[in-house]
């Protein structure tokens, strides 16, 4: 019997309903849980030899979890509400005469602003633009907007400083000449950030406004350090192979383990990003513009790239790296690396750092993630791994000539000083050196003695170093003999030196060594510094001083307010109850504790006002 046509159609209708229902569900799901981001932006594209971290998770859950907790993972993220720290709920920002209104609407992060492409007369119409990507998650978050020109991005001019919880101009976040401004719309993310803030970034540069930028994965993920994993994943799909590996001592050669590489190759894994490098041949440069660098973890980095050693935007005059995040430059010029012996140990990144804390670490993942150090590596244990001759306290004290419990007996305070700058603070150099007054004289880089003994002159440091038999005292001018070196760097130095001093005056070890009662006038003087980042750090350090904990000052406020803030700080300092502390000519203080204004001003007039730009 022939079935009625509507009965025959029933299965088709049911199937169609299911299919439509499924597609509708996935669409709604996508809209509700993950609103669409702008399409004209860089995207993740898994292809070729890369597989992405999601593949690694199935077999390496602990390593995945520790990586997920790291700031490497979140170096680049899609601009979704769950990935940003700041509130976007109707936030009004003003920058160089322009008004921006941030908003969180329909699950999207957007900015309302004047149309930057408007070429008509009269005020530009206001438009809403969704944010595309966000950079960083530890100290700062910077934001990127689509330009509408292929995948090219534009820098949003304001960034968010996490520890103080405020928006600030991106110009202020860098040590950058005040008369200059960051270029916002030059495709900087596509050209530069993409190199290291993603895994296997592919710039896809085809023209000034034509960029098909992609990455294997946003953020620095497994394959950045272990190499592409497609082959490893394919081979280990076999349980027999995996269980053979579990019960054997051998290593899986299908993937790179940086800890198992020789020290120099291991360091190059980190050096692919933590160094100032450039392609060392035309083919590599062309390849980078198209599809990213050819370097893979385990390769010889120097085969395809040059490591730069000079350039005032990165280096002190003697080639010591001056900016943060480029530790490979310092490491590879350290005697512990250059002259290290396999028998005793060669210092490499994983001598002190670890990308995956051990299971019995004892610290929270958040504690570990701040610098990703092995347990104990903030202290002398780091150096004692090789320099065992100083394990005995009496030997250490004999070497340092400082009390065992003092900052002067901490190896790194003398041999890895805070002379790199980045993220609005001083950071330890990774070029291991010994204190030298001569180097300070020749390069302007603060030496370890004077960075801690802020109240002492360069001559004092030179005398002590000569007395140790390390080095002869160099010839010094009158100020270098009579005035504390920190004051000379703070008043007469360039912007980089002033920034380091602004930080050093707030360094607890230096404060404990040098006393703090004399510091306020100097930090207050930096309130009028032309460089935003110097003013920011000076204010942060001033607030660590007794009596200034609540001192208010807006480092990006109107220039006319800066002098008033200086006067307020000086007034407060004068009115503080007299406390015992260092005084004297070398601190430009009279016996009654008042400031020697004339000498102070004379030195201030010698300030090195050459433009300084530290490209961290």
């Amino acid at each position, binding site marked *: 019997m022939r079935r009625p046509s509507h009965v025959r159609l029933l299965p088709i209708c049911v199937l169609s309903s299911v299919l439509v229902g499924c597609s509708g569900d996935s669409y709604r799901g996508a809209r509700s849980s993950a609103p669409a981001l702008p399409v004209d932006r860089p995207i993740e594209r898994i292809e070729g030899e890369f597989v992405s971290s999601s593949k690694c998770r199935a077999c*390496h859950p602990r390593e995945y979890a520790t990586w997920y907790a790291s700031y490497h993972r979140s170096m680049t993220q899609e601009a979704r509400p769950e990935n940003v720290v700041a509130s976007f709920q109707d936030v009004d920002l003003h920058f160089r005469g322009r008004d921006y209104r941030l908003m969180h609407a329909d699950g999207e992060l957007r900015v309302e602003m004047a149309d930057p492409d408007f070429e008509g007369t009269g005020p530009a119409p206001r438009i809403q633009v969704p944010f595309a990507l966000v950079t960083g998650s530890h100290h700062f978050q910077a934001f990127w907007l689509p330009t509408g020109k292929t995948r090219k991005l534009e820098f949003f001019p304001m960034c968010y400083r996490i520890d103080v919880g405020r928006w600030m101009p991106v110009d202020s976040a860098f040590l950058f000449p005040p008369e200059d401004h960051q270029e916002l719309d030059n495709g900087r993310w596509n050209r530069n950030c993409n190199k290291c803030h993603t895994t296997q970034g592919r710039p896809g540069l085809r023209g000034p406004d034509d960029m098909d930028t992609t990455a294997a994965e946003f953020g620095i993920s497994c394959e950045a350090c272990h190499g592409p994993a497609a082959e490893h994943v394919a081979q280990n799909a076999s349980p027999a192979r995996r269980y053979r590996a579990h019960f054997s001592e051998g290593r899986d050669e299908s993937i790179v383990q940086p800890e198992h590489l020789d020290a120099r190759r291991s360091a190059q894994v980190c050096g692919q990003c933590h160094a100032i490098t450039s392609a060392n041949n035309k083919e590599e440069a062309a390849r980078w513009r198209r599809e990213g660098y050819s370097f893979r973890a385990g390769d010889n980095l120097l085969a395809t790239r040059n490591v730069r050693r000079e350039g005032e935007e990165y280096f002190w005059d003697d080639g010591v790296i001056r900016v943060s995040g480029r530790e490979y430059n310092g490491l590879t010029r350290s005697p512990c690396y250059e002259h290290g012996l396999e028998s005793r140990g060669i210092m490499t990144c994983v001598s002190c750092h670890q990308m995956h804390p051990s*299971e019995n670490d004892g610290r929270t993942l958040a504690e570990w993630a701040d610098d990703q150090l092995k347990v104990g590596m903030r202290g002398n244990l780091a150096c004692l791994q090789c320099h065992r001759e100083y394990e005995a306290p009496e030997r250490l004290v004999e070497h340092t000539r400082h009390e065992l419990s003092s900052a002067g007996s901490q190896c790194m305070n003398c041999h890895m000083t805070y002379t790199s700058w980045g993220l609005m603070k001083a950071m330890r150099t990774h070029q291991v050196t010994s204190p030298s007054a001569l180097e300070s004289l020749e390069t302007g880089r603060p030496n370890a003695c004077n960075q801690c003994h802020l109240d002492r002159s360069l001559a004092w440091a030179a005398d002590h170093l000569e007395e140790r038999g390390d080095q002869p005292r160099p010839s010094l001018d009158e100020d270098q003999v009579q005035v504390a070196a920190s004051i000379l760097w703070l008043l007469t130095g360039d912007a980089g030196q002033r920034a380091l001093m602004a930080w050093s005056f707030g360094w607890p070890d230096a404060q404990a060594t040098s006393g703090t009662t004399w510091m306020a006038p100097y930090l207050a003087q930096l309130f009028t510094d032309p460089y935003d980042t110097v003013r920011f750090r000076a204010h942060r350090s001033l607030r660590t001083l007794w009596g200034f904990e609540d001192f208010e000052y807006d480092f990006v406020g109107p220039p006319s307010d800066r002098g008033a803030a200086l006067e307020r700080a000086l007034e407060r300092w004068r009115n503080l109850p007299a406390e015992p502390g260092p005084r004297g000519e070398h601190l430009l203080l009279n016996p009654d504790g008042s400031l020697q204004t004339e000498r102070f001003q004379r030195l201030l007039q010698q300030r090195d006002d050459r433009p300084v730009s530290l490209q961290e």
Partner: protein
Amino acid sequence: MSPQPQGPARKGGERNLRFGWWSLLAFLSLGIALEAMHGFKIGWYLDVAHETRRLLWRLAHAHGVLLALVNVAFGLSWPRLRPGPTLSRASLALIGATVLLPLGFFLGGLFVYGGDPWIGVFLVPPGALFLFLGVFFTARST
């Protein structure tokens, strides 16, 4: 009406029934233990690094409970099934599956190699085979 099985054949149904209820008790207890580990936030079970163990023990609990109920259902169905050697094989296969499958998952989760279970997990495939055969023999006995 089919005749009631007598003698050894009848014992097969009772065996599955008794085994099913005792297994249910055992695997419910495992479930309570797992819930307690949730309650007390035991890292060895809950941490992301131990998600393989958590997965395997949840599988042990779920398979154990489900197979215990299958044994109870088998025992209760016994009077309606066709007696014979096939049915006896079904009885033994279901008991074997109820032992091997959850035990394999449980042992597999005791120690883990990243995302891979301990070798105890190799009890699972024969357990699955027993389950397949148990259901097949039962179906043939209907």
